[in-house]
């Protein structure tokens, strides 16, 4: 097979590659049967490619400088976020319809400050140690929350009891094989119920360089990237978990960041080192959620009216399409 360049090594000593290696156009590295030779030729070929690429870059840069102001703008690299399929339910900040909807939906009493959030955290039957600890830590993060053990009670029975005792939200953490893997968030007086798949749960002791425990101060809330109508309502659900007035003395912030339909929850303590610099230190548990379904009423698996379900066959077909 035509190798077309330089000496071929025999004893394992590689001679230095010549400046410009010429490969005949019909040559392909993979045709050489000898592995050592093939490897060597491949390395040569790779070096060649790299040189060419560098040369090309230099040329382009020179052209750019030569043109000066008239140079075409730099090309923006494509990212998944750039290429995202446009979702027609994206919320426009000035949309009146959305604003009207929000003024009259189930969270309106919260946002009008008529109700104070009170949260009940519970698990599925027989929680294991990790889930129990996670519930406790979650309870320290969310102010005004209480943890109760399930002990085999049916959700449909405890919901009216919760409503009677003035709870505004119910969180059920589902467990599988000793790790929490699902979260059901239900806004109580007849509010929407969201079912999430929870993953990468890290307890406080597993977080590196963590600070001290979260204090009792009411944290601030950051909600990022909830753009579509669905994302909007989910974002409001999360916001309704926390009391309205964050205590800035505590300098704690809870973040729900949505990226490509995954909602990352983090809990940090921040400090402003200067006007343009802020330092954050992670405390508290972290987890990621992925929305599975959103139901109109409270938790009811059989007769509930589903506002949105994740249908894998229809919704997972495109890599650039996201729903939150």
């Amino acid at each position: 097979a035509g190798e077309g360049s330089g000496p071929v090594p025999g004893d394992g000593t590689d001679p230095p590659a010549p400046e410009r290696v010429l490969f005949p156009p019909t040559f392909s590295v993979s045709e050489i049967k000898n592995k050592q030779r093939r490897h060597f030729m491949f390395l040569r070929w790779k070096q060649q490619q790299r040189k060419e690429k560098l040369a090309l870059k230099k040329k382009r840069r020179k052209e750019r400088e030569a043109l000066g102001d008239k140079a075409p703008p730099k090309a923006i690299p494509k990212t998944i976020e750039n290429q995202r399929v446009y979702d027609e339910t994206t919320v426009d900040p000035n949309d009146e319809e959305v604003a009207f909807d929000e003024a009259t939906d189930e969270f309106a009493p919260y946002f009008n400050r008529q109700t104070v959030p009170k949260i009940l955290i519970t698990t599925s039957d027989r929680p294991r140690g990790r889930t129990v600890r996670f519930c406790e830590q979650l309870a320290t993060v969310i102010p005004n929350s209480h943890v109760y053990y399930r002990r085999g009670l049916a959700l449909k029975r405890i919901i009216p009891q919760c409503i009677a005792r003035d709870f505004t939200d119910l969180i059920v953490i589902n467990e599988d094989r000793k790790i929490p893997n699902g979260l059901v968030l239900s806004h109580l007086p007849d509010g929407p119920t969201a079912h999430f798949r929870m993953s990468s749960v890290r307890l406080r002791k597993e977080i590196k360089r963590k600070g001290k425990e979260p204090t009792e101060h009411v944290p601030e809330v950051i909600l990022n990237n909830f753009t579509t109508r669905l994302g909007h309502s989910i974002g409001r659900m999360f916001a309704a978990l926390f009391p309205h007035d964050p205590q800035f003395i505590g300098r704690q912030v809870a973040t729900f960041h949505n990226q490509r339909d995954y909602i990352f929850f983090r809990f940090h303590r921040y400090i402003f080192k200067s006007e343009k610099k802020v330092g954050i230190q992670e405390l508290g548990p972290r987890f990621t959620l992925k929305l599975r379904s959103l139901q109109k009423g409270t938790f009811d698996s059989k007769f509930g009216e589903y506002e949105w379900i994740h249908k894998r066959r229809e919704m997972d077909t495109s890599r650039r399409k996201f729903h939150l």
Partner: protein
Amino acid sequence: SQVVWSMLGNRQFCSYKMTTKTQNFCRNEYNLTGLCNRSSCPLANSQYATVREEKGRCYLYMKTIERAAFPRRLWERVLLSKNYEKALEEIDENLIYWPRFIRHKCKQRFTKITQYLIRIRKLTLKRQRKLVPLRRKIERRENRREEKALIAAQLDNAIEKELLERLKQDTYGDIYNFPIHAFDKALQQQDAESESESDAEREEDEEEEEDVDKREFVEAEDSELSDFEDMDKLETSSEEEQEEEEEAQKKASHSKSKGKTPLKGPARRKRPYIEIEYEEETEPSTKTKAA
């Protein structure tokens, strides 16, 4: 019969027989006790009876010598009544003149079956745990996508940016006293115009800013509800802000940056307390704002 048993039971191979260390079991569905014995083998006994249940109803199956030549009609089936005692009587009456062992074992088996049927009915009334099978490929795909989304999210940067935005928009009021911004602004305006006018201007600016914020019901860019939540904080703190800026001018000479040092842990917490006390000392009376 004896011949059959001598072939299958002890010496040769019976496909229904399962041996374990201590016991031999019989997998034949018509077997009465489930063990592989001379008396319990349905193949070796030409007169045999069992109780089996189908869809919640119990039947008594009987096999007699007369029908040994017709395999299709071999097992005769009798439906037992749902009433426990009546069914026992029916078993007795059908198996009259049958060996004691078979009668007894049939009744025992029938009892066990009714007990487990009752338990099934009770359990179905309680909450059932639904097992959903995981799809490995999908799980792996989701995990991969989650990792990539995490990298793309750049959470720390996003949070820091958001916090700085909030600082700029004065949602924190006067807790963080970085007078540099306000000071520069004040200096510029002082150069241009007189003091009182600049004050009025600043007040107006702030009022306009807040009105604008209120009108923007839902903020664009990244976060939406943060500003809305902190709207009240804006109102109450704006008054203090105005005074603070005036104060900032006066304190121009000794504007020591009250920026906090990047200490972590308890040292960090001490600082804010001290600063707040300081600010409270110098706070004049608050103006009332026309809402």
